[in-house]
C-alpha cells in the first residue's frame, strides 16, 4: 500500500486511515500509554515486591 503524502488525514483517499496511523496520530493516547505502562510494570510491580519483603527482627 502506498504511503500518503501527508499522513493520516491528508491522504485524500477518503477512506479511514489505518489503525496504526490513527494510533500514532493520537498523541494524548500515546501519552497515556507512555505513562501507564512503565508505572504498572516498573513502579507498581516493583513496589509490590518490595512491600512483600519481611521486616527484620532486631
Amino acid at each position, binding site marked *: 500500500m502506498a504511503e500518503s503524502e501527508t499522513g493520516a488525514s*491528508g491522504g485524500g483517499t477518503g477512506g479511514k486511515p489505518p489503525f496504526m496511523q490513527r494510533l500514532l496520530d493520537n498523541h494524548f493516547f500515546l*501519552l497515556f500509554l507512555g505513562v501507564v505502562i512503565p508505572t504498572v510494570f516498573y513502579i507498581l*510491580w516493583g513496589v509490590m515486591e518490595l512491600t512483600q*519483603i519481611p521486616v527484620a527482627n532486631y
Partner: protein
Amino acid sequence: MTAIAQFRTCPDTGFKVHSAAEKLIKANAVAAVVFLLVGGVFGLSVALTRWQEVHLLPADWFYLALTAHGLDVLLVWIIFFEMAILYFASAILLNSRLATPWIGWLQFWLMLIGALITNVAVLQGDSSVMFTSYVPMKASPLFYLGIILFAVGALLGCCVFFGTLIVAKDEKTYEGSVPLVTFGAITAAIIAVFTIASGAIILIPTLLWSVGYISHIDPLMYKTVWWAMGHSSQQINVSAHVAVWYLIAAVIFGAKPLSEKVSRTAYLMYILFLQLASAHHMLVEPGLSSEWKIFNTSYAMYLAVMGSMIHGLTVPGSIEAAQRKKGFNKGMFEWLRKAPWGNPAFSGMFLSLVFFGFIGGITGVVMGTEQLNLIMHNTLYVPGHFHGTVVAGTTLAFMAVTYIVVPLIWRREIIWPGLAKLQPYLFGFGVAGISLFMMGAGTLGVSRRHWDIAFSDATLSFDYPAAAYLMLTLNGISAILAAIGGALYILIVVGSILFGKKRDEAAAPAPAEPTAAAATSYGSAGTAAVPGTFMLALIFFVTFVLYYFVNWKYLAETWGVS
C-alpha cells in the same frame, strides 16, 4: 482574546518562526550552555582527580565536584536544551504560534531558580550526595527543593508543548500527521512526563525527610522509584537526540526517512518500553524478583533497543538515499565520502550516531543482561557507558544542531569557521576516549565514585592491576581533549551570538528549495536502495555479537567450572 501572532520566515531554511517561541528557545539554549560550562569544569576536575598521577582534588571536593558535574550536565544542561527543542519542534516545525508563552516563561524561571538553588546547596558542601542522592545519605533540604522546582518547570514546558500541538491542530497549521521530528519530540515529552511524575513520587517525601517531617525512607524503595526518574530522564535525551539526527539530515541534505511508518513505529517502541530499562540499575538487588528484572530489562528493553537500531539504520539510510538522488552513486560509500564533513552540524551529528550506537548502545545491552551485569555493576564501566550515550550521543547531537540554530534563531553567522569544523571531532573523540577508558577500568574492577583507587589511607590495602591506572590516565587525557572541544563550542556559540556577523534577511535571496520542507512535512524517501547503510549495519551487528559474547567469556572466567 485574539492572539496576534508575530512570525518571520527564515530566508535560508524557509522555517516560519514565531517570535514568542524564538525568545523562549534563545533563553533556554543560553541557560543550557551556561550550565554546560559549569558542569564541564567540574567534570574535568573529576577526571583529573581520577588520574592518579595528578589527583587534583581532595576527597571532600571530589565528591562535591562529582555531585555538581552530574546535576549540571546530566540534568540541567540537557533538560534546558530539550525545552528549546520542544518549542522548536512544536511552534516552528508546525508553523504555529506557541501556546501560552507566559507559562513557557514560568517554565524557564522555575527551572533556572531550581538549578541555582541546587547548585548553591551543593557548593555549600553539605550536599555531596552525588546525582543519585541515595538515602540514607542526606542532603540539605535546598538540594531536593531545587530539583523539585526544576522538575515542575520542565513539566510546565511539556504542557506548553502539548498545548502547542493542540493549537496547531485547531488552527490547521499543518496537514495530516505531524512531521517526524515533531513526533520524536512528542516521544521525548511523553517520557518526560513519566520521569517528572516519578521524581515527584520520590523526591517530595525525601524533601520532607530531610527537614524532619518523615522519620525514615526505605533505601531500596527510594532506589527503585528514583531510577524510574533517573534513568528515564536519560531516555528523554535519546528520543530528543534521535529527533535532532532526523532534523539535521533533513536540513543539510533535504533527507526524508526511508519509511515514515517504520521510523514512527520505532518511536512507539520507545514510548512503550524505553522507560522500563530503568530496571537495569536494580539487577543486583536481592529484594526484587528475577521475573521483574528480566521482564523489564531482557524483554522490554530489547524492544526499545530494536527501536534504536531502526533509527540507527534509517537516519544514515535517509542521508544515503538523499545523496544518491543527488548523483553520489559510485560504489558503496561515495555518498558518505562526499558528505560535508567540514560542516560541524553534519560531522557532530554523524559522530553522535556512530558513538551512540557502537559505544553507548552495545554496552547498554550488555549491562542490561542480568548475568553480565554482575561483572560490571557499580564499576567505572557504568559511567563509561552513559558517557557514550549521554555525552557522545546526546550532547554531541545538541552541539551539532546549535550550528543550525544560531544562524536560524539569532540570525548571526558562526564565527571562527575553521575552529568550528574541528570542534565536533575534538569533543567527540575526547568523549569516546573517556567512555572507552572508563569502561576499560570498570572491566578491571575499578569501582565508580571512588576518590582514590590506590586506597592510600585504608587500613587494608588493595591493588588494582597496573592497567587500571593506565586506563585512568588515558581517561584524563581524553577528558582534556573533550574539555578543549567543549570550551571551543561555548566560545564559538557565545561569540557567534554576541559578535557574529548579522544576517540580513531582507537582502538574502530566497533559496530555490527551502530545506525546511523536508523537516516540516510528512513523507518517505521512497527507496530502500541504501547498500552502504546496510553494510554499516552489518559491521555494527558483527561488533555487537562479538562484544556480547566476549563479555560472556569474561563472566565464565569469573567462576571457573572444574
